[in-house]
């Protein structure tokens, strides 16, 4: 599969870096591929921009930063403005459609995921919108198996958060099935 470059970008506090680490760790430990995750944020604890970069490759990763992203997960207006045009042609864009306008760009695959809204409606918290996005991402891209992400969630988060995070992940997966059909195998064939 060569080298796949993913950017998660939004505001500090939205969990973009956490989402990146969960995905990266799952692929690194269970996916038997090379992964480098790096992050960029400002000095503020909340607000300000926050970005997580995940690079997945069959070969050892030398240069550890994103050059041309294949996949974008966007959760803020500023991030959309900054990265939309950097996405490769035919690249994949997931954006939080409950807080952002539909972006204007052709020659890419755009997926509207109202993550903040469905997290709040179903789980009564916006804090897991990042995990909803992650669920949608793995369903759409088939980059890693959902059960493995659930395993990582249990390894990384304290037990009191397992239930809500695993629910959020599944809500994201279920929502994204409207784009891919009912299973990951189907999305594989569609590619």
């Amino acid at each position, binding site marked *: 599969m060569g080298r796949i470059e993913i950017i998660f970008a939004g505001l500090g506090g939205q969990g973009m870096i956490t989402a990146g680490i969960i995905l*990266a760790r799952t692929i*690194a430990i269970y996916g038997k591929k*090379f*992964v*480098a*995750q790096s992050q960029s944020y*400002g000095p503020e604890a909340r607000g300000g921009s926050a970005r997580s970069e995940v690079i997945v490759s069959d070969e050892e990763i*030398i240069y550890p930063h994103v050059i041309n992203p294949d996949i974008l997960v966007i959760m803020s207006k500023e991030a959309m403005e900054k990265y939309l045009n950097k996405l490769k042609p035919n690249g994949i864009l997931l954006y939080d459609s409950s807080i952002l306008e539909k972006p204007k760009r052709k020659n890419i695959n755009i997926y509207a995921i109202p993550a903040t809204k469905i997290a709040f409606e179903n789980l009564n918290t916006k804090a897991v919108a990042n995990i909803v996005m992650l669920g949608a991402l793995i369903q759409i891209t088939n980059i890693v198996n959902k059960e493995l992400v659930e395993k990582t969630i249990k390894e990384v988060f304290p037990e009191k958060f397992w239930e809500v995070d695993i629910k959020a992940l599944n809500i994201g997966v279920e929502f994204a099935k409207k784009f891919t059909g009912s299973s990951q195998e189907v999305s594989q064939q569609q590619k």
Partner: protein
Amino acid sequence: MSERKNKEVLSGVHFWQGDTACAEGAIAAGCRFFAGYPITPASEIAEHMAKRLPEVGGIYVQMEDEIASISAVIGASWGGLKSMTATSGPGFSLMQENIGYACMTETPCVIVDVQRAGPSTGQATKAAQGDIMQARWGTHGDHEVIVLSPNSPQEMFDLTVKAFNLSEIYRVPVIILSDEIVGHMWEKVRVPSPEEIEVYNRRKPSHIGEPIFGGVGEVGVPPMPRIGDGFNLLITGSTHNEYGYRKTVDPEVHRRLVTRIVNKIRENADKIIDVETQNIEDADIGVISYGCTSRSVYDAVILAEKEGITVGHVRLRTIWPFPEKVVKEVAERVDFILVPEMNLGQLVYEVERVVGCEARVKAISKIGGGEMITPEEILSEMRKLLGR
């Protein structure tokens, strides 16, 4: 006890960020004391040590500031524990005076500087490589320290183990000069089994009364007792004779002491220095790199090869003492040497000094926003110099 033993070296494959790997490397090397003050992007080292040290019978202290932190680290080392602190630029500046004290009193200790963009508060969350010269010359007076430069979470582990070993062998502060990119990057880290990890401990005196600040020739490292071992210990930053007595006006004692603490590093440089090289036998152009920037160079070497350019690359895992011999070797074979660094030119001057007229030395500088120098930027500089 055996349960504690299992927790000392977490053998296996992990997905860690560089800062975590550094803390684990320290524990695997036998570090049992950490004193620090939180600062981005080094706080995760302190955080991890706070969690882990109590599990292995060690001590973690959050101090009131960085001056106190390095002081406590030096004290703990004389108390017999392998000790470490971790900080970034502003804290590293505050520690400088007592790093000199550690040099003068020949106190083994490890100082981690996860570099961020300075001067002053600068860009607190963004990477830079601006402390190269401060690590070498930050404290006053003639001295030598050892400075290591990891380029991955794996090397944050490996080189932290190495830092403790060098520190114990040479009784000298060792600085791990990391940066925000390497410190915060998450990658796979393989922790070897305890048997695979070589751990050195300081040499102890054979009898009470043995000189512990000299009496070992001109480049030797004297043995070091622990406070409480029964020695009448005199430990001072003032010039002292081999028994620790202050000799603040005697020119000969000063010359002998300071020359030895410098030469014990300089004369052993070949044993200390650790570099990785590519194609230096047959290169069209040379590159000297270190830290996170070296990763861009490894990629640039591959890109250049596709264009028929053979790059002689020297990657410095040891920055100080400066690996003069291998840099000279490259310079004799090429016309141009590039030195990419995330500062406005620091190590490039050392390369120029060593290379002299053998080759033209050129810096590739980039600062701000923690942006790495890209492989493409290095390649384009090569094309320019080689006229392709």
